[in-house]
C-alpha cells in the first residue's frame, strides 16, 4: 500500500508529528542563560535543524517558552502574563539553575525560587548556564513529549480537558513579597525533612 502512495496513520500521530517539527519558541531573555539560548539559535549550534528556528517576538505566535535566566520577583508577573498570552498548545523548558530553583540567588530576597511555582514546566535543563547541547537535548525531550501526547482520555493535554484551566493567576506586588508567594495549585512546599548540618 505504501508503495502505491497510500499512508495509513492516526490523526493524533500526524498532528503530533507536525507540531513537533515546527516549534516556535518565544523570543525573550531574562539573564545570562539567554546568551546561551541565542548561541543555540545561531549558526554553530543551529536550532533550525530541529524545526525551531523562528523565535517569535509575540506570545500570540509562540508555542514554546524557554525560561532562560534568573526570574526576579519584579519580573515574575510579566513572565506569567506572557505565558498566559501564549496560545495552547504550549510548552515550557526551564533553562538553568536560576529558573529551576533560584540557583546562586536562592537565598536572596528578590529572586523567585523556581518558576515552577507559578507556571507548569515540561522540561528542566540543569546547568549554570547549560551547554547549548543541553538545551538542544531539552528541545528533543519536548519533541518526544509532543509526539507521544494522546489527544483524548485522562492523559490528554490540559486544553482538551474540561477539568483544568489554562490560565494561571498572576501574583500581586506585596509590601514585603509577592502575594501569593506561590501558586498553591501547582506547587506545594516540600515535605518537612531536616538533616543535621555539619
Amino acid at each position: 500500500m505504501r508503495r502505491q502512495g497510500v499512508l495509513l496513520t492516526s490523526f493524533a500521530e500526524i498532528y503530533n508529528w507536525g507540531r513537533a517539527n515546527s516549534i516556535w519558541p518565544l523570543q525573550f531573555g531574562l539573564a545570562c542563560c539567554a546568551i546561551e539560548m541565542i548561541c543555540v539559535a545561531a549558526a554553530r549550534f543551529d536550532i533550525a535543524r530541529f524545526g525551531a528556528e523562528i523565535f517569535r517576538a509575540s506570545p500570540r505566535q509562540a508555542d514554546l517558552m524557554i525560561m532562560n535566566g534568573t526570574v526576579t520577583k519584579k519580573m515574575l508577573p510579566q513572565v506569567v502574563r506572557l505565558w498566559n498570552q501564549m496560545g495552547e498548545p504550549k510548552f515550557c523548558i526551564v533553562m538553568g539553575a536560576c529558573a529551576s530553583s533560584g540557583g546562586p540567588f536562592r537565598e536572596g530576597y528578590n529572586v523567585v525560587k523556581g518558576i515552577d511555582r507559578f507556571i507548569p514546566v515540561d522540561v528542566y535543563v540543569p546547568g549554570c548556564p547549560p551547554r547549548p547541547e543541553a538545551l538542544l537535548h531539552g528541545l528533543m525531550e519536548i519533541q518526544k513529549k509532543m509526539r507521544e501526547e494522546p489527544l483524548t482520555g485522562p492523559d490528554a493535554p490540559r486544553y482538551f480537558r474540561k477539568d483544568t484551566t489554562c490560565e494561571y493567576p498572576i501574583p500581586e506586588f506585596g509590601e514585603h513579597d509577592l502575594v501569593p508567594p506561590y501558586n498553591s495549585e501547582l506547587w506545594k512546599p516540600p515535605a518537612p525533612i531536616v538533616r543535621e548540618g555539619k
Partner: protein
Amino acid sequence: METLEQIRDRIVAKFGADTVTLITNPGPSAQHSLLLVAHAARDIARFLHDDPALRLDYCSNATGVDWPDKEIVETVKTTQPDPAGGPDKVVETKTKRIQPGCLEAVYHLYSIALKSAEPVIIRMRTANRTDDVTLPSLTPVWRSCEFQEREIYDLYGIVFTGHPDLRRILMWDEFKDHPMRKDYVGPDDYEWEPTPHGEVLERAKAHYPTPPASTSPKSEE
C-alpha cells in the same frame, strides 16, 4: 592633583571649619575621604566640580553604607591603694555607651578634564537611621548620580532632597523595606534544603523543629 588635606583646607577656608572632616582609612587601601556636613554639601560639591584646580567633573560611583547602632565598651583602669598595706589593686570599670547609627552616602569623584587617576571620595551622613534620613541630592551637580541615588533610596532608604525623580529603581513601588540595611529581615519563605548549614540551618530548625525519626541518622543508631 591636590592632596585631600589641601582640599579640606580650601573647603574650610571657603565654607567654615565645621563643614568638612577628613576621615582616614586605616586599611591597606588607605582611601581617605572627606565627610561633608549635609546642609553645606551641595555648595561644596558645586565648588569641587567648578574649581579650576580640581575640576571633579565625573562621579563614577555613588553608594550607601548602613551603620547600625554600635555598643562600645570602654575599660578604665584605676589603681586603688590597698588598706591592708599590700600592693596597689588595679580596678577595671567598664562603661558601655551606644554609638548611634546613621546612613551614609559615598561618592567617588574623578576629573576627566585633568585626567585624575585616584578618586576623591566624599561622604554625607544622615542624622539617624529611622526618621531623619534626608540628604541633599548631588544629582544637580553630577548627572550620573541620578540612578545611583535612586538605588540608594531603594535599598537603604536615604531620601535625597532635590533629586529630580526619586523613585524605587530595583524593587517594585509597593515594596516597603530597604533590603540592604543590616536589620532587614527577608520574607520567611524557607523550604527544604539538602544540606542546610549556618543561617539556613537555623531557619530550617525554626520551620521544622523535630526531624522525623525515620530520616534522622542519629535516631537509627
